[in-house]
């Protein structure tokens, strides 16, 4: 265990050993494709929402793509994931199909929850994605429970429990930190600090704004990471996952990130300036940053364009599928309440 003074590395540059571990161009291109997929998917979802094809709450992940893509790129197959209601990106990064996610957004029978969960409640046991939870922070103890199961079964898996900066003020998060540390559960708490819990900035909601510090009282190591830089995320993910996998207990990663869109589709986002959003997009966009890196590494525009085109067709096919899929049968109203 690191000594207490060093337990939180501010603005952490990852340790040297992992900084030098530069991914191959092939991997960089995969990361690019996944981030672009999430962005295009979310843009399409926003569009379909505007056209009335998606109802209710719809929380878009645009701007935060590097966090989940970087994290999941370091995960093992048996690792499990749980997150909040801003979950579309997580599902795609876990390998769930665009068409199934989109069909759930449109409330159709081919959706992952057969149209009964919607944007905030989707799951895939096959991909070890355990939701998609609509109650702020409820997924955090659930993630610790999945970690408990990994440890109990001895399957070597780690849980990644994603939560927002808003959730970081919920009491059950600290109940969970305590148990996770006490029982050395293999869980990475990934705090996606996008600066706003709905309309309330972190400065107005959190006493002590370094959320990576929030596990200090429990002896949980925390690292603050540039969540707009997918390589920084990967490096931090590797450290956290190795820590958990080696039986040392939980780890906190505070990902400094930003959402470009409102909290949900119905949020006019009056609590921040246009300039703030534009500055973030221009200077820190995770996809543009990776694109620049790829070009520096010798990728050519045409190759990247090919990826863009491929993603575009996947998303447009997903939208077509989601609109063509039928609504659930009326009988489905009464199915899946209890297992017989």
């Amino acid at each position, binding site marked *: 265990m690191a000594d207490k003074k060093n337990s939180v590395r501010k603005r952490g540059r990852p340790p040297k050993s992992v900084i030098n571990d530069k991914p191959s161009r092939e991997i960089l291109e995969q990361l690019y494709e996944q981030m672009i997929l999430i962005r295009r998917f979310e843009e399409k979802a926003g569009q379909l929402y505007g056209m009335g094809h998606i109802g209710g709450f719809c929380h878009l992940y645009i701007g935060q793509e590097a966090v989940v893509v970087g994290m999941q790129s370091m995960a093992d197959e048996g690792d499990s994931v749980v997150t909040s209601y801003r979950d579309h990106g997580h599902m795609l990064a876990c390998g769930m199909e665009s068409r199934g996610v989109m069909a759930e957004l449109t409330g159709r029978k081919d959706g992952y929850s057969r149209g009964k969960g919607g944007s905030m*409640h989707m799951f895939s046991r096959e991909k070890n994605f355990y939701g998609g939870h609509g109650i702020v922070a409820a997924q955090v103890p659930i993630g610790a429970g*999945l970690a*408990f199961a990994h440890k*109990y079964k001895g399957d070597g898996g780690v849980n990644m429990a994603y939560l927002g900066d808003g959730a970081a003020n919920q009491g059950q998060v600290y109940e969970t930190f305590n148990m996770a540390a006490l029982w050395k559960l293999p869980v990475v708490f990934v705090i996606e600090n996008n600066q706003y819990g709905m309309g309330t900035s972190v400065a107005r909601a959190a006493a002590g704004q370094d959320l990576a510090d929030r596990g200090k009282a429990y002896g949980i190591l925390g690292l603050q990471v540039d969540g707009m830089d997918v390589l920084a995320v990967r490096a931090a993910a590797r450290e956290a996952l190795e820590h958990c996998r080696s039986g040392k207990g939980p780890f906190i990663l505070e990902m400094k990130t930003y959402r470009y869109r409102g909290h949900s589709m119905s949020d006019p986002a009056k609590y921040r300036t246009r300039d703030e959003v534009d500055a973030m997009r221009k200077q820190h966009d995770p996809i543009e940053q990776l694109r620049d890196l790829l070009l520096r590494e010798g990728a050519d525009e045409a190759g990247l364009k090919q990826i863009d085109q491929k993603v575009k067709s996947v998303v447009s096919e997903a939208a077509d599928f989601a609109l063509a899929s039928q609504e659930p049968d009326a009988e489905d109203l009464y199915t899946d309440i*209890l297992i017989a």
Partner: protein
Amino acid sequence: MAVDIKMPALSPTMTEGRLSRWLVKTGDEVKSGDVIAEIETDKATMEVEAVDEGVVGEITVAEGSEGVAVGAVIARLLEGGETDLPASAEQNLDRPAAEPAPTGAAVVVEAVAATRVVAEPDWDGPTKQQTVREALRDAMAEEMRKDERVFVMGEEVAEYQGAYKVTQGLLDEFSNKRVIDTPITEHGFAGLGVGAAFGELRPVIEFMTFNFSMQAIDQIINSAAKTLYMSGGQMGCPIVFRGPNGAASRVAAQHSQCYASWYAHCPGLKVVSPWSAADAKGLLKAAIRDPNPVIFLENEVMYGQSFDVPEHKDWVVPIGKAKVVRPGSDVTITAFSIMVGKALEAAEQLSAEDIDAEVIDLRTIRPLDTETIVESVKKTSRLISCEEGFPFAGIGSELAMQMMEQAFDYLDAPVMRVTGKDVPMPYAANLEKLALPQADDVVAAARQACYRTQGG
């Protein structure tokens, strides 16, 4: 002046105990605060301290005596210069106390009706006497032996052996991997249990009492109950939330509430609340095996009560089946948990008035076995619903509506409710008694339903 030392009440529901050991003998001088004896209650072995100073003049209850009633004199203390020990003091040591508790002592358990209740109508094999507490413990132990995925988690379940001793012995047999003490963190460990169930384990989560489950109700309803539906059938949550529910004794409003109707309100949950030890065992085993979240409502007052439990290596009682515990033809009385005992007591009183009551133990609240109730009402044309919980939007309200929908033409009298009063539970003994439904209330309701005046 000799001072009587009486058997103390060491828990809210204690009515008697075992005098395990004397730490003083006649002739010893004791000071206030000295430990003089050890007493085993229904929950733990406790030390008893002297309140007054003096010389132990007589020990009236020998160590090892079982069933010593709260309030019984266990020793006499001689004060200020008294020295004469009674000649009979030594002889008394052999005599276990059988002295009944004096009026006004903390006797809270209503006598269970004398009616002999069979464990299960279709079991005619051998039975053994067991307390509800032991039956619940055996149910967990048997399921844990059978299925490696089953684990028990909660406050004081392991090293303390259970706040109410329900998990006694489990830690020794199954180790701290499977019997896990939690911090006081209901919301957290309920959610953690849900996650473990999603992760294909079979958690049994104990709430020290269901009153504390209010801290965790979001995880129970929003996460455990709804996820199967929200996932289009992918994500079952095989979990049992169990612990004592309803009133104990003299613990007032925040520790004395029945949550049956709260949980029964929600689709996606099963809600079970047994009365007898046989059902407690069989239903808990069924709950642990059930692929759905099950709320298992026990009752602290019932823990120490003994019943015949089938000697069967795998006694399982199906969830969703009510049981006619006393057949009758004039009026149907439904009850669950502790109220079944009171309903049976009422039925005995009614039989003296020539009213033949049929008593149904609901056992499962959700899914409710309305079929058994309707069949009974077809015969009796009258229904009294008993519960300890509040009347408004209670189980009785639901039963009345079910009867309107399913048995209206068979009713000869309005469905009646016997419930706890519509007030937070008061502390004062007299008020608490008034707040809780009693056998007499059931008798009065049955008379009314049968259009009888008292004794007529």
